[in-house]
């Protein structure tokens, strides 16, 4: 693994400096309209996801063959009971989108949780212990991202059958390397610092050193990376649905809605478009917020 440039890093000598820097971060974010917009969109999406069972106007799974392909309320033939129209078996698009927020976010967040757990752990171990373990773990990192990710995902899901759990695991296990890399770099940078030496001299165990002193310094990188990975996971899930290996369940993610609706784009444009807009808004919002977070917290990521 080549040595990437680590510019004079943002290493904090002690806690108070770190805290001061963080409040500066929030103020910086607040001044930026794009980031504010992003945060608002995200709050909306998360709110919808959480409140889904109470705010959906109809049961997302309820079909009505008479009401198939109803256009959105503002188009001719539209119906105010179905503001965003209905799909090929008459289910309400709006309800499905609200419910889809829940599932898409769930997939995205859980995938990231898996990646973070695996990646941070391995990164810490790799950086701290060094030597052969480091080489082994870094080789695993290389292997993971040399593998065309979508093919790995496809192969896994093809092997295990379609299910949300499989998709989450696959997305998680193909995204961990970036955390491992970044955390490891952080560990390497801090390992030799005075206060770490001091801690060790005092007899504090490695695990505690890792947890209390090194790990907190990696938080900013992890936060930035995971924010961006949620966005990426949502898009990757859509790609998998497109390739036909989505979860196969009745409650779809947004990606699945687009994949299922894309054949009808010429007769029922609203079917793929609204979930597409939902993904667009969410991912864009995540990117905007994540970007400013990155600027504020850790530009080198």
């Amino acid at each position, binding site marked *: *693994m080549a040595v990437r440039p680590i510019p004079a890093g943002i290493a904090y000598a002690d806690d108070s400096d770190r805290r001061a820097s963080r409040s500066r971060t929030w103020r910086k974010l607040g001044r930026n309209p794009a980031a504010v917009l992003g945060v608002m969109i995200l709050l909306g999406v998360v709110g919808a996801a959480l409140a889904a069972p109470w705010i959906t106007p109809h049961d997302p799974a309820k079909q009505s063959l008479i009401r198939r392909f109803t256009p959105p309320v503002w188009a001719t033939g539209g119906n105010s009971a179905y503001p965003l129209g209905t799909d090929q078996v008459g289910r309400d698009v709006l309800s499905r989108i609200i419910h889809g927020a829940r599932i898409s976010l769930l997939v995205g967040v859980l995938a990231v949780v898996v990646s973070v757990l695996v990646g941070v752990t391995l990164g810490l171990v790799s950086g701290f212990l060094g030597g052969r373990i480091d080489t082994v773990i870094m080789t695993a990192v290389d292997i993971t991202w*040399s593998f065309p990710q979508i*093919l790995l995902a496809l192969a896994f899901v093809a092997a295990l059958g379609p299910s949300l759990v499989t998709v989450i695991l696959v997305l998680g296990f193909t995204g961990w390397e970036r955390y491992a890399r970044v955390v490891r770099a952080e560990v390497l940078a801090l390992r030799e610092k005075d206060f770490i030496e001091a801690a060790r001299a005092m007899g504090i165990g490695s695990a505690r050193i890792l947890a209390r002193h090194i790990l907190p310094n990696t938080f900013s990188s992890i936060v930035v990376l995971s924010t961006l990975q949620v966005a990426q996971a949502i898009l990757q899930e859509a790609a998998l649905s497109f390739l036909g290996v989505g979860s196969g369940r009745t409650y779809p993610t947004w990606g699945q809605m687009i994949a299922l609706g894309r054949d009808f784009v010429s007769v029922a444009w609203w079917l793929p478009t609204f979930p597409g807009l939902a993904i667009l808004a969410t991912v864009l919002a995540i990117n905007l917020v994540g970007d400013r977070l990155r600027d504020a917290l850790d530009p080198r990521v």
Partner: protein
Amino acid sequence: MSPFLVRRLVRLVVVVLGVSLVTFAILHASGDPVSLMMPEAPEADRAVLRQALGLHDPLPVQFARFVGNTVTGNFGKSFFHHGQSASALVLERMPTTLLLTVLSMTLALMVALPVGIYSAVRRGRTVDQLATGTVFLGQSMPVFWTGIMLILLFGVQWRVLPVSGWDSWAAVLLPTATLSTFTAPLLLRIVRSSMLEVIGLDYVRTARAKGVSESLVIWRHALKNAALPLVTVTGLQFGLLLGGAVITETVFAIPGVGRLIVGAIRQLDFPVVQAGVFMLAMIVVSVNVMVDVLYLYLNPQIRIR
């Protein structure tokens, strides 16, 4: 340099082997290709075919055979495409996918460089926000959706470009544009942040004080700073880009490696999947080795400056 190179090459071999092992494991866990090929045949017939394909040997033997064959470049014959050599099938399509990937990368750079520089120079202003926002827009939609929308707009609505296929340079445009929306944002980010890093630095201020024109300052000095991370990221992105290429190839009916492998995974065509994944991994890793070498080559220059 030399021992470093040697280490990198050893790493390359190990990684590619690792990728092959993982592929092998997943494929064999996926099921039985023979029953896919002959779903209604009696078990006796299938056992014969399995024998012929060498599938009934214990797994370690199969893997050892695979490694041995790989060294000689022989991946066996495709299960699905009767009698065709798996490596021939992959090699036939590799240039197409590579061309698509490289062109998309180039197009993305051509967009990311000016927009990134401009938005760094005019930082914080509306233009910065708008420009960055637009480029990010492209990355916020699933690739297949972008592709379909572009087809509908440029192919059906305005009729200026062919809808699909790979039989003319015009047909290359839409898929390239689709795929480059995927990479452009990250490149843009890099250009922008590298520019921002450098713009305030001493030597740039000094150059300005000496009277060197603004644009010269920007283009020569600042760009040099962006070159390094750009090169690095290009390497890293390559793997992701190949993934996006798979989708693009399916939407635009392009005869590339991605499409071949997707089909092969579905059909459990082991030789083709192994050959394809192996070669793709080789390419990704080689690109990154080259990037590392390039990096080392460029690095001392910057330090001297």
